[in-house]
Structure formats: structure tokens, C-alpha cells
């Protein structure tokens, strides 16, 4: 069975860029799911199983940090690895994301090689 990934970003453009970067980095997924914010992602994870989540932090409605908080309280999804893809490179915000369970971070703008470096350790 192949690997499934969920990309969470309020920007449709960024979701497409992430998908293209994943392909350019050599990753192949059985299925790529998309969500526009944390709440949409939680709703989706109620019916879909994924192996990896790539999430923005700064989003309207439910941001990436709140998504991590709520995910950590749900036994069905709390162990799915999450990598943050964000303009928020500050150690305080990334530190908070990691304390909430994020397994890594990729700073926008990014290259396929940087995606490979971070995801290669998880997949």
C-alpha cells in the first residue's frame, strides 16, 4: 500500500507548489489530500487516513499550532508525523510547534532539496 500525505495551507498556490516540490524531490504518494486550514484538516482526518501531514502555521480560522494542539488530543491521529512548512522561521514559533508534536520544519521559500532533507528522515 502506498503512502498518503495531507497538505494544509490556506494558499491554493502553495499547496500546488508543495506538491510539485515533492515530485521534484523524488517522493511519490498514492494519494495527496489538501485542506485550507486546521479545522478542515481535522474534519478530513475523521474519514481519511494519511501517513504524513505537511502544514502551514499562519492560517485563518484554525492555524497550524491549534491544529497540532487538537490533533495531539485525538488518539486516532496523534501519532501521524507533522512537518511545518512556513514563513515563521523564528525559534519561538518553531519551538512551540515542536513542543506540540511537530517532527520538523521547512522554511518558505524552499527548494526540493530542502524538502528532501527534512522528509527523507521521516519517510
Amino acid at each position: 500500500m502506498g503512502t498518503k500525505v495531507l497538505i494544509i495551507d490556506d494558499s491554493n498556490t502553495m499547496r500546488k507548489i508543495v506538491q510539485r516540490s515533492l515530485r521534484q524531490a523524488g517522493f511519490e504518494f498514492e494519494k495527496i489530500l489538501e485542506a485550507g486550514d486546521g479545522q478542515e484538516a481535522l474534519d478530513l482526518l475523521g474519514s481519511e487516513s494519511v501517513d504524513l501531514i505537511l502544514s502551514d502555521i499562519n492560517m485563518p480560522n484554525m492555524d497550524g499550532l491549534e491544529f497540532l494542539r487538537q490533533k495531539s488530543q485525538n488518539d486516532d491521529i496523534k501519532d501521524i508525523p507533522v512537518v511545518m512548512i512556513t514563513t515563521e522561521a523564528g525559534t519561538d514559533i518553531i519551538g512551540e510547534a515542536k513542543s506540540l508534536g511537530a517532527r520538523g520544519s521547512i522554511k518558505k521559500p524552499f527548494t526540493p532539496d530542502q524538502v528532501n532533507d527534512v522528509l527523507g528522515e521521516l519517510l
Partner: protein
Amino acid sequence: MDLKSKLIASTQEIFSTMLMLEATPAEQNPQAAFTSNISGMLGVSGDLTGMLAVHCPQAVATGITGAFLGIEVASIDEDVKDAIGELVNMITGGVKDAFGREGLNVKLAVPTTIAGRSFRIDCQGAAGREIVAFTVPEGTFLVEMKYKPLN
């Protein structure tokens, strides 16, 4: 606070990393008229209060969007609005990082995009202004930051 160099460095990093295009800083009279068909804006708060904006003519905005998505884009549509919003988000993120290295904590809002033939953007209480023009193959665009000067 060398804001101009931060705007240039952040913008050029995005173009070279994600768009595979060169954005070359150009001379721009801040008082000169500039026709923008779409502007992306993002507010900042914290140790620096203000707004960063990117102003693009249609040809530049569609060119940037096409380079982001790897497709041909003919006119300003939802993809273009979204792409310019993401561009301003990343430029502001780079500027925030640069301020962070100087010990300033800047918080980002969520980007907004306006498209049309005639609009004016004001930033309340902002007395400081830095504006940098960049040339790309499709033309010139502006990166502007209006801010309340630091105490």
C-alpha cells in the same frame, strides 16, 4: 534599521529559490505614478507596526503566478490573487526573520489581495515608508513597506 536591504534580500531569495527568475532592483521615484492591477498586503505588529505590500501590473502578476505554478496564466484570476498573497506572505516572512536576528519581534497577519483598475491603499498611522522597484522579464513591480517608526 536598513529596511531597504531587507526588502531586497527577502524578495530576491524567493525569486531565485522558488520562481527561478532574477528580480533586479531598479531605481524608482517614490512619488512617481505606478499602475498596479493587483496588490497584495500583509500587516505586521509587535516591535514594528505597519504593512508590507507588493504592487504588480497584470503582466507581472500573471508571469509570477505562471512561474509559481508551472503553467501559462492569461489574466488576473483567483490563482493570481492567491499567488500574489503568498508572495507578500513570504517576503514579509523574510523581513520578519531579518528583524528577528536584530532582536526585534515582529508578528504577521494573514495576507489580503486587491485587484482592480483604480484603488488606493493607506496604512493608518504609518509615517515611515520604503519602496523598492524590481524588474523581471514581464516588467516592473514594487515592494513597499509603510511603518510606524521605532521608538
